[in-house]
């Protein structure tokens, strides 16, 4: 187990190094480079630009810049926003809880509903329920999230007035119920795609398991079918699902961005869009890196959970 852990940690570290190099390269390959916002501003003279270059260390060789930037990322100095000069770390980490709240609630909700639908569809294979959920999932996967969000705002917020149209709290509010009320629409919109994916994966994973000998044995022993389903079927089917949860993370993070922009949910996604319109490089880079780190850590976590849960993985290692 220890060797497996160290192995996976080293792999993640290498991936992180690669991600930082690609991210840094991207920033410097973009037209105008990190100073685009200044070079495009007519009131900034050439001398000013030279001074800003020296100030930001952009006159130094590329590898020195990279090392400084990467070192800064590790030591918590993520630079300063081009606008207002605030610490980037503060701006970004400020938004992180809102994004995690949205992603976590959606994921949990989608897991419960998706696994339930998928299990039922697998048990009642080729039934009307199976076909209906298959078609429903396909359509849910094809809906543009932003459009679905806009429609839900129109119906449930503006027409029916059941839920607020956006933001995380009302003016002056901020209690638990108020937050919950604001959370409903964005969570449903973000969870829809996840439910669709999870129900499909659970279905095929369950079908594989239900065909296997140990399930047949359990049934032959005369165990109640609901018990076989939960104790044998679902438990075994969950292992590949955890791996999939790791792989789905980029989609979840991307979906959160889209949902946040539609519902003006004050998370990282909304910050990213507003930083994009002002071309605030340090903020954009920080969010890009935080997104990638979340994905890498999520995958690492998924692998560890699988190693703990699935006896076959451990055997490999010892």
């Amino acid at each position, binding site marked *: 187990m220890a060797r497996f852990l160290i192995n996976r940690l080293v792999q993640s570290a290498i991936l992180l190094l690669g991600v930082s190099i*690609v991210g840094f390269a991207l920033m410097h390959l*973009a037209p105008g480079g990190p100073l685009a916002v200044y070079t495009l501003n007519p009131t900034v003279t050439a001398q000013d630009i030279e001074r800003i270059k020296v100030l930001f260390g952009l006159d130094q060789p590329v590898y020195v810049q990279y090392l400084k930037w990467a070192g800064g990322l590790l030591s918590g100095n993520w630079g300063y926003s081009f606008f207002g000069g605030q610490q980037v770390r503060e701006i970004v980490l400020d938004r992180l809880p809102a994004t995690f709240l949205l992603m976590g609630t959606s994921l949990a909700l989608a897991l419960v509903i998706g696994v339930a639908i998928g299990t039922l569809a697998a048990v009642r294979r080729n039934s009307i329920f199976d076909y209906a959920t298959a078609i429903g999932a396909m359509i849910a996967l*094809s809906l*543009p999230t*932003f*459009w679905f969000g*806009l429609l839900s705002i*129109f119906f449930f917020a503006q027409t029916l007035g059941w839920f607020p149209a956006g933001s995380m709290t009302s003016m002056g509010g901020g209690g638990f119920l108020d937050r919950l009320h604001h959370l409903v629409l964005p969570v449903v919109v973000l969870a829809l795609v996840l439910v669709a994916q999870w129900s499909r994966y659970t279905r095929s994973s369950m079908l594989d398991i239900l065909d296997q000998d140990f399930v047949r044995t359990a049934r032959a022993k005369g165990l109640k079918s609901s018990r076989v389903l939960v104790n044998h079927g679902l438990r075994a089917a969950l292992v590949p699902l955890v791996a999939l949860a790791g792989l789905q993370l980029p989609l979840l993070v991307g979906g959160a961005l889209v949902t946040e922009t539609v519902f003006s949910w004050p998370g990282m996604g909304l910050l990213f869009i507003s930083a994009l319109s002002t071309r605030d490089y340090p903020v954009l880079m920080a969010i890009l890196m935080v997104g990638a780190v979340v994905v890498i850590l999520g995958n690492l976590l998924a692998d560890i959970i699988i190693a703990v849960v699935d006896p076959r993985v451990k055997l490999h290692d010892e």
Partner: protein
Amino acid sequence: MMSDVALEPQVVAPPRRVSAFRRLLRHRLALLALIVLAVLVIGSAGAPWLAPHDPEELDIANRYAPPLTEGHILGSDDLGRDVLTRLMYAGQISLSVGIAAMLVTVIVGFSVGAFAAYYGGWIGVLLMRLTDIMLCFPSVFLLLFVAAFVTPSLASMALMIGLTCWMEIARIVYSQILVLKSADFIAAARMIGTPSWRIVLRQILPNTLAPVLVAATLNTANAILLESYISFLGYGIQPPAASWGNMLTNAQSDFQVDPWLAVFPGLAITLAVTSFNFIGDGLRDALDPRIRDR
């Protein structure tokens, strides 16, 4: 119910004679999707001849006309332009971006995967590590980041979307070729002195085609979604040119005045994307003999 499933006899696979295309057609939803897609393609490609109005024609007297009034089948927008006409012209752009982006993902993904698997060595390792790294970035973030710094056009949109979505195909091709490389018929081809490029083109390409075709179809669906979102935010196709995404840019305020304006472009996107997804699903069933009877 439970015992039904357990005791269900193994369905006997139909004879291999039935071609993959026939099997795709038997997949009723895929067939329906093909028809819907054909209508969308004909409507878009034939827009100059079929559209009831000119896409830039202003009808200021009839702004925000509801559907089926004042000679506008799907109504008119804030400048009195005909919505159906603009949807048809927008389809040209949105579908082209989707298909062109898909081609980019196939070309880049296949090249990376094939090169890494066939030649291996440190370049191969490096290429597959690059694939892993690219997969760590949520593609919407990456795409928006690049889109904000590039002058948007049909070609640049397709290229950007393609360059952020090729990784899955690279992985498929890589693992397929690793299996194929040890196959006897490849060894035989190499033994009689066939040049590498010929082996790749004549032996390996046809054998990796099925899974790549499925992934490419699903990539087209994804590319249409991404284009619509980027254009919706204003970083994609610029007005007055219409794309299904940028027709929704004012959707939030349109809802107050004329909800239809916000409905039709979204429906067009959903129809196109659903069609590609169903076709991809049907292709997967048709091309993979193992899951045929599921």
